[in-house]
């Protein structure tokens, strides 16, 4: 333990010394920081603009810059069920609980991730749908299994089918050498909550800068009132719905009365 501390202590100045050498800085701007879900919401596309600021210390990069943008939606504990045939019918037999899995996940980049950095680097930085951590709550292993775990694969597949998980290797466009644009597709089913946008700058296969750009998806007045009422005042909401039903029925019988 003490040796480890010593080692870390010795490494600190090296790390500090290394950062000024890579002196690029990321400047980002989102087209909208608050996405409002109204009654006619059918999805939206957010645009993220970014610039790479260089200073006198930055050296020219041999292969140019690469950008990887990871957008992670609000965390939701999600259960994945697997069906099995029992007595001739398909029943939910086995399940895994994914603790705080992002409800929305988009990995956008200007070219394929494996061309930007090595698999080792991507795994270490937890970049891409293959490497994103999706911890499972289970007695077997809490840390989550490898990227070939069938439940993990199924979660990503089902979420991708809903348009909630995506990986786009053309999601980022480099407009100029130091200027880029990323489009974040938000489908209509997009969950409400806070979204973290993690912009990473790569050069020569290594990450050299990183910047956050969070945004929020929220419901508009009417939608919010309904959601709150249903959640916080269930009985009153139910009574109101029931009375609405009876009134509609009564109204119809008056309107269509024939005798």
């Amino acid at each position, binding site marked *: 333990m003490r040796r480890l501390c010593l080692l870390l202590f010795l490494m600190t100045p090296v790390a500090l010394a290394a950062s000024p050498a890579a002196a690029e800085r990321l400047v980002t701007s989102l087209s909208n920081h608050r996405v409002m*879900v109204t009654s*006619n919401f059918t999805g939206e596309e957010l645009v993220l603009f970014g610039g790479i600021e260089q200073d006198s210390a930055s050296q020219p990069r041999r292969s140019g810059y690469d950008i990887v943008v990871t957008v992670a939606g609000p965390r939701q504990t999600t259960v994945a069920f*697997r069906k099995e045939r029992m007595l001739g019918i398909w029943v939910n037999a086995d399940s895994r609980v994914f603790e705080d899995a992002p409800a929305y996940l988009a990995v956008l980049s200007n070219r394929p991730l494996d061309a930007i950095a090595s698999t080792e680097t991507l795994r270490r930085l937890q970049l891409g749908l293959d490497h994103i951590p999706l911890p499972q709550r289970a007695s077997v292993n809490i840390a989550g299994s490898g990227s070939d775990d069938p439940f993990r694969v199924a979660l990503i597949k089902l979420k991708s089918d809903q348009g909630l998980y995506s990986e786009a290797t053309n999601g980022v466009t480099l407009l100029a050498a130091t200027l880029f644009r990323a489009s974040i597709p938000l489908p209509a089913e997009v969950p409400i909550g806070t979204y973290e946008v993690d912009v990473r700058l790569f050069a020569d296969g290594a990450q050299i800068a990183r910047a956050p750009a969070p945004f929020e998806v929220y419901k508009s007045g009417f939608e919010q009132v*309904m*959601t709150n009422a*249903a959640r916080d005042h269930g009985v009153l909401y139910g009574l109101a719905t029931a009375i609405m*039903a*009876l009134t509609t*029925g009564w109204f119809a019988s008056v309107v*269509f009365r024939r005798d």
Partner: protein
Amino acid sequence: MQIYLPIADLPVNVLVILAMGVAVGFISGMFGIGGGFLMTPLLIFLGISPGVAVASVTGHIAASSMSGAISYWRRRAIDVALCFMLLAGGIIGTAVGVWLFTFLRGIGQLDITIGVSYVLLLDIVGALMVAESVRAILRARAGKPTELRRPGSHTWIHGLPFKLRFKRSRIYVSAIPVWGIGFLIGFVGAIMGIGGGFLLVPMLIYLLRVPTATVIGTSMVLTLVTMASATVMHAATNHLVDALLALILMAGGVTGAQFGARAGQKMRGERLRLLLGLLVLAVGIRFALNLVLTPESLYSLRLADPDA
């Protein structure tokens, strides 16, 4: 015309939902049933989660049975005493059903329970109705008179104690089967999002020998009260009732029901029963295939309950 449903959390086309309401309302008006057994699967097919579909359809059925019940009330075709006795069982059945619904949702077996219940109920009831109406049609073809109600024919049900007299229906029957039927209807209604009219009407006719004159009106009042209370209970326990969805369904449903009722009056009773039987059977077979055929994906996702 898209509209975002606040509880279902997804946008739907208002016209599609409205059209579904009209279509199911037409069928329900024609046969004197709630139509929930058609509406719930249709909503699930649109991508609305089974829980929200079941919970919201209860409101829709309450509305359509309300408009039906009022017109039967005007014709004095409702046995109020029988209603109260059925309701006594129905409310308890609904409460137990909502509780079981919440429990099954927690352990992830809600879909399969809804699926198996649908298959068993629809296939059995559908087959019985088809068989009965075909026999009636054949009998009519052969020129024999249609089977009359035999007041003297008693079954074991009529031997039970706690007998009560229901004046409007002119029956004298034990309270136990009346409560039992009420309980069963409330129970399956809450779990499956159906009013249970297609179950209640045959049970009242064949088990309790309630005359056809009062059976549909009485069934509508029972459906109305169980479904209105199921709406409240679902809203209070599961928070899954989408009032906006329910409102669109209602608007279509009550309109369709009026035209359905007119169409239904022009048809002969046994033809009507045969059609309804075939419809019920077809939906049941569709559900059976769903359970037996290998699904497209073996996996499904569900949000964990925050309070679980």
